[in-house]
């Protein structure tokens, strides 16, 4: 997955597989967070299959790009991407949230050593990303660091401490992505703490800011390419997404932030919509 030509058809197929795996593993677990996993799927698929330099047979390759899922509750998307990339087996996914499984309810690097960070307490990932990007710079490594944030997560103060400091360090190798799906646990983000104008907030902190449709592969890949070209300051990609994307009855539904359909027919409907039986 290093220096190859990006194939959007492959990414689309991977994203479809990831969405299906998310539904399957959450159905097996009986609990978890489908909405934010599905909204972030296209972004994560682009990172793992088109953008990041990483080597699945060599997960601890020192110059690998780092990915931090700061919105840790969306871990099904991370686990599914790791399975698709060949880091873990597909069979393991059905152990999500079970006692003894490396696939904890929120990512835990003590249990799954190949992930970069344990997350689940919101607000922390961007600061960790600064530390990792800085470490790479001090080592003289070309490694880039990607941090996926939730929009609701941006209500945490630590995000803005980090947002203030990363441009000061001129950390061009750091790229934050805001999965702007406009829903959080209690209500819409607009109702809880209206973040708009979100892109302007980052701009005013001297970030290189890009606003895109987070489900459009061409836009996503172009944004990551442009991020890489700006080397004197960090980039944030504010990606407009749809919570529950890909499953008609989950889209934009608050309920599916943190709950899983319990009826087998609902699971079957979701999988059918995601093209079950046609694993690419």
């Amino acid at each position, binding site marked *: 997955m290093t220096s190859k030509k990006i194939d959007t058809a492959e990414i689309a197929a991977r994203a479809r597989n990831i969405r299906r795996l998310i539904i399957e593993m959450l159905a097996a677990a009986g609990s978890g967070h489908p909405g934010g996993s599905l909204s972030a799927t296209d972004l994560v698929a682009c990172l793992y299959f088109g953008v990041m330099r990483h080597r699945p047979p060599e997960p601890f390759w020192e110059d690998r790009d780092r990915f931090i899922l700061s919105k840790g509750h969306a871990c099904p998307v991370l686990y599914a991407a790791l399975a698709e990339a060949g880091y873990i087996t597909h069979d393991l996914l059905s152990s999500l949230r079970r006692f003894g499984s490396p696939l904890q309810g929120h990512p835990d690097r003590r249990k799954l050593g190949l992930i970069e960070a344990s997350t689940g307490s919101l607000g922390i990932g961007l600061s960790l990303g600064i*530390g990792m*990007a800085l470490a790479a710079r001090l080592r003289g490594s070309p490694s880039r660091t990607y941090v996926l944030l939730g929009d609701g997560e941006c209500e945490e103060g630590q995000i803005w401490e*980090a947002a203030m400091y990363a441009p000061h360090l001129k950390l061009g190798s750091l790229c934050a992505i805001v999965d702007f799906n406009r829903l959080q646990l209690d209500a819409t983000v607009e109702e809880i703490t209206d973040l708009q104008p979100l892109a302007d907030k980052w701009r005013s902190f001297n970030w290189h800011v890009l606003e895109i449709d987070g489900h459009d592969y061409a836009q996503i890949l172009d944004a990551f390419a442009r991020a890489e070209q700006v080397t004197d300051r960090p980039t944030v990609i504010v990606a407009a997404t749809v919570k529950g994307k890909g499953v008609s009855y989950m889209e934009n539904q608050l309920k599916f932030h943190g709950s899983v359909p319990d009826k087998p027919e609902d699971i079957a409907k979701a999988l059918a919509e995601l093209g079950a039986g046609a694993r690419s």
Partner: protein
Amino acid sequence: MIRRWKSPLELGMATREAYGRALAELGQENPRIVVLDADLSKSTYTSVFGKKFKDRFFDVGIAEANMCSMAAGLAAGGFIPFASSFASFLLCKGYEQLRICCAYMEFNVNFVGSHGGISLGEDGPSQQSIEDIALACSLPGFTVAVPADEVATAALVRAAAEHYGPVYIRVGRPRTAKIYAPGERFSFGRAKTLSDGSDVTVIANGLMVAVACEAAEIAERRGIDVRVIDCHTAKPLDEATIEIAAAETGAIVVAEEHLSRPGLGSLVAQAVGQRHPVPMEFVGIDDVFAESGTPEEILRAYGLTTEHILGAIDRVLGRKVKGAAAVDR
């Protein structure tokens, strides 16, 4: 009788200054040492390192949470970070970051909290740290140390750099008495027995070690043979040394510049209760915030002087022999 200190005790440098100097020395030896501070580098003395190693020093500004998580990210990238602020801000504002990024993620980060305790004086309770040890000890996997003087500080800072795992070290603002001769060796979890008396044990850390030494000499003149232990590491606690002291002296006083509940006093009480129950007394800060004043005024007002240790020795000896008053003197 073991007697590791010279009498009378002579004043050395502040432990925070010893920390800054030790860091600069370590930075010379090890290019993986990186240092972070939150706009207090002149007070914490990390500026000594910062001046020498500009590219490995990050003053993140007044943003402790970001600093603590950034330090963890640097550790993930193979560096050995030391992050500093005032102990109160580091542990209270950074607690979640110490918990998630360092304890839970098992990243190798060292934190040094300066201006610990109430002896920083005039700045008052918002800056005084009376619960940092308890907070740090509550974090799984953390090593927690409170050095008594400059020699102990330099040795424990070096031990932190060599130890893999999160470490918290508390240092103080005022100059502290010299307890140890240069070259004294320290390791985490191995307390120092400073005198081997047999009537009662005083276990102390930080600047209360010097106070305990002075109290021991006065008690000795009154015919009480005091064992003094510098329990510089609160976690892991040297339970073996404490058990022997309980068994051989039959009475224990714990002295610390911190809340005694929960603090070193609570930790020692748990060890004593499990391994060899004996009467105990506690010299520490009661369940209150202190106030502004000179260090001497505050330490006196909040019960952290030689006289307070002597009083605790009397009380614990009174309980050592059931039904008897304090031992005859």
